[in-house]
């Protein structure tokens, strides 16, 4: 695999962008911000002009999840425990509903667009009718308290490509796989290395599983976070990705970066399974390309900014990234 990743465009901003959606076929992106608003930029422009979704009834805190409910309608989730539906063109609020008892960490839409999944630190995943906003199911199975008697966090979720299965993952390194039709647990997996509890020096924890991605054939599940770290004041551990054959509950690979450090905040497979891309970072950012043939790192790049979320373009050779005080693009190309 002879590829390289290069940083291309970067738009600097005062806020932090946590989640990203792109209008299909365009270079217009929508992202959720630490300023509690959804913003939009057209990255075709040399100097893209910021457009914000203004509303008196909007979110009150970080927008950590964005998903497409249907073309032209976005759903956002926030630390304010609310989900909100928005008209993209008018940039106006359609509805808002109290969705969780604690902070929402991620919002994703099902492949067929019918459902919206949200996960929050109340440790439940809720499935919503993407059109009406009705609660469809509540998936509860993650422990609310860590083994060390502290409140836990439910960081991420991902649908399988066929939409039949959903994975959720938490602070302590537990992954639960759910059957959508029956709304029941199928199985669980563990990636405990991604949770570092320090009993002695600092007596609290860091880490957690921050990203999930099913392989295109749905059989493998990639899980992203950070490896063990000694000093939990910083994101000083190697970035870490584990891959499971989830049906057999088998670990296929455990990969750690060499020089870049931090969390893997977002994962995506190439639609044909050619590679697996993980992005994230510590005080800087990182982009890691993995060759699934050998489950080895093919490209390890330190980027200028910590990346919280990314999307691929239609031809999977451009990455749209949202991160710390930045929105940008990166290119993937053959060497």
């Amino acid at each position, binding site marked *: 695999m002879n590829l*390289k990743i290069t940083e291309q465009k970067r738009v600097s901003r005062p806020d932090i962008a946590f989640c990203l959606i792109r209008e299909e076929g365009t270079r217009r992106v929508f992202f959720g911000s630490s300023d509690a608003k959804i913003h939009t930029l057209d990255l075709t422009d040399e100097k893209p002009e910021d457009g914000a979704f203004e509303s008196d009834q909007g979110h009150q805190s970080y927008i950590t999840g964005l998903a497409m409910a249907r073309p032209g309608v976005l759903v956002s989730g926030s630390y304010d425990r609310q989900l909100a539906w928005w008209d993209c063109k008018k940039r106006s609020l359609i509805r808002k509903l109290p969705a969780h008892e604690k902070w929402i960490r991620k919002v994703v839409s099902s492949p067929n667009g019918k459902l919206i999944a949200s996960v929050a630190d109340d440790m439940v995943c809720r499935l919503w009718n993407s059109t009406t906003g009705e609660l469809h199911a509540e998936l509860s199975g993650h422990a609310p308290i860590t083994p060390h008697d502290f409140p836990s966090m439910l960081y991420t979720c991902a649908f399988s490509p066929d939409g039949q299965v959903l994975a959720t993952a938490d602070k302590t390194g537990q992954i639960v796989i759910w059957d959508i039709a029956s709304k029941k647990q199928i199985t669980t997996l563990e990636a405990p290395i991604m949770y570092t509890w320090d009993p002695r020096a600092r007596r609290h924890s860091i880490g957690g599983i921050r990203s999930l991605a099913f392989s295109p054939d749905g059989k493998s599940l990639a899980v992203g976070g950070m490896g063990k770290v*000694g*000093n939990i004041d910083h994101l*000083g551990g190697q970035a870490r990705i584990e891959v499971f054959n989830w049906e057999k509950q088998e670990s296929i690979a455990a990969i750690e970066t*060499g020089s870049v450090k931090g969390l893997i905040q977002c994962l995506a497979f190439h639609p044909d399974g050619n590679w697996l891309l993980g992005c994230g970072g510590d005080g800087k950012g990182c982009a890691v390309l993995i060759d699934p043939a050998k489950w080895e790192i093919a*490209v390890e790049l330190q980027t200028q900014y910590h990346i919280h979320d990314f999307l691929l373009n239609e031809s999977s050779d451009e990455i749209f990234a949202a991160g710390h005080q930045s929105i940008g693009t990166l290119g993937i190309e053959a*060497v």
Partner: protein
Amino acid sequence: MMNDTCFQSLISRLVVLLSPLFLVPSSFCVGGESAPWWIGLDDSSLPGREEAVEVVIDHALAQKLTDVGIAPAEPASPETLLRRLTLDLVGRIPTLAESGEMPPAVETADRLLGEPGYERFLAEELNWLLLDGKNGDFRKFLQRAVAQEMRWDEIFTEVVTARPDSEFRKGVDQFVRERVQDQDKLTNDVSVRFFGVNVSCAQCHNHPYVKDWTQDTYYGMKSFFSRTFENGGFVAEREYGLISYKTTEGEERKPELRFLGGPALTEPEHREPTDEEKKLEKAMFEDLKKKKELPPAPNYGRRARVIEAGLSGENDDYLARSLVNQVWNRFFERGLVMPLDQMHGENLPSHPVLLQWLARDLVEHDYDLRRLIRGIVLSQAYQRSSSWESSERPDPELFAVMTPRPLNPRQYGISIKIGAANPDYFPANLTPEEWEKRIEQTERNGEGMARWFQRPGGTFHFSVDEALYFSNSDDARNQALNGGLVSHLEGLKTVPEQIESAYRSVLSRHPEQDEIDLFSQYLSARTGQTKEALGQMVWTLITSSEMRFNH
């Protein structure tokens, strides 16, 4: 005749001495000179370079004492001095046989400096300086290095080079290896432990007290270590990589290599390698990891530059001054510069000319530590009593009276083993080999006890934990009762003989009359349980303040 710097330093010192009266913080800076104190220092007040170290020390200290009009303490008694020398040079109290002889101090000092125990003790102290006393291969490396009389600048080079490529060098990399995951810690520990300079204050912002110390200074120092990493249990280093940092204003900067705030060093042009080159390099390191091999040194190594910088020109004075200060602190419980990790240019020593003289002398004599230590212990200043009768003890930085120093854990443990042992275990007529063997064994036993005690440092307070340990643990009881001394005392005919023997074994002196009376009363009231009573007497002596201190 005093020049400006001398005069200013005198004023600064007077401010320090008089500040209790004026409530002036002693960090008040007189003169506002921005050049480090060692520049332009006039040493004409001291005897010439050919004079003995101890003469120079006494001259420098006496000058200041005269200036402030304080008469120093009397010389310590011969018994006290013998005990002090033995503790300071070989890390234990004298055996009974050793304390029988009272030769002149210089003979005792030379005898002790020639014993293998001196080397073992020195290696221990260096291990504390560098690795907080950790047990392991590094400690063994230091023992080998000291036994071979390796110079301090050579030890510095070996430790920072961190290449265990021979049996001799096994463990040398532990210092760097343990810190390599946290480069800030590595940077600061090298700066503090070798150069006496704590740079970490300048990490997040420009140094609050030292004008010239900016974040560039800190990151300039960190740059020496930024390419160092761990590869399969060995210290490795990349050929490339630049660090950057954000100033307090948010400006991003790429620092240059700088040794402790000095000028930027020239380096070969930096080139970020291609992805292909990086891949090859990564594969090479992975391969070495699998084979458990020591990675090769890079063609251009930044870490080697810090060795080069630290030993060149006037920079090597940092290394020498810091070592002198540490050694001085060990013997006087106070460095010539305090705190020990603030040896930057704006922190004036109590005796700047003396410190500079001793540092230069050390360098000129190939870092001969034995020479420095010998000079210190032969000085009158070192040989003074620790008693001070009149009202307040003088300011410690006058060195007018010896400060009682708590024994470090190892000293205390070994001394208890010796003190509570049967004195016949170390008779005067042992062969040197047998004696050495027994002393070494006793040291090892004593080290086992040492883990119960805290290493003194700063303004040390004994914790009640130690008092509880001695008062209530089986272990402590055993030490006192079954070390061999009590059995020996049981065999003595009279109570005064028992008291005399106990005092001489444990406290290395004869008891005074009031002490004889005290213990006579105690023992006579317990004739039914002699062993127990003798054990309590031994307990009292080994836990006494007198035993606990190097006085």
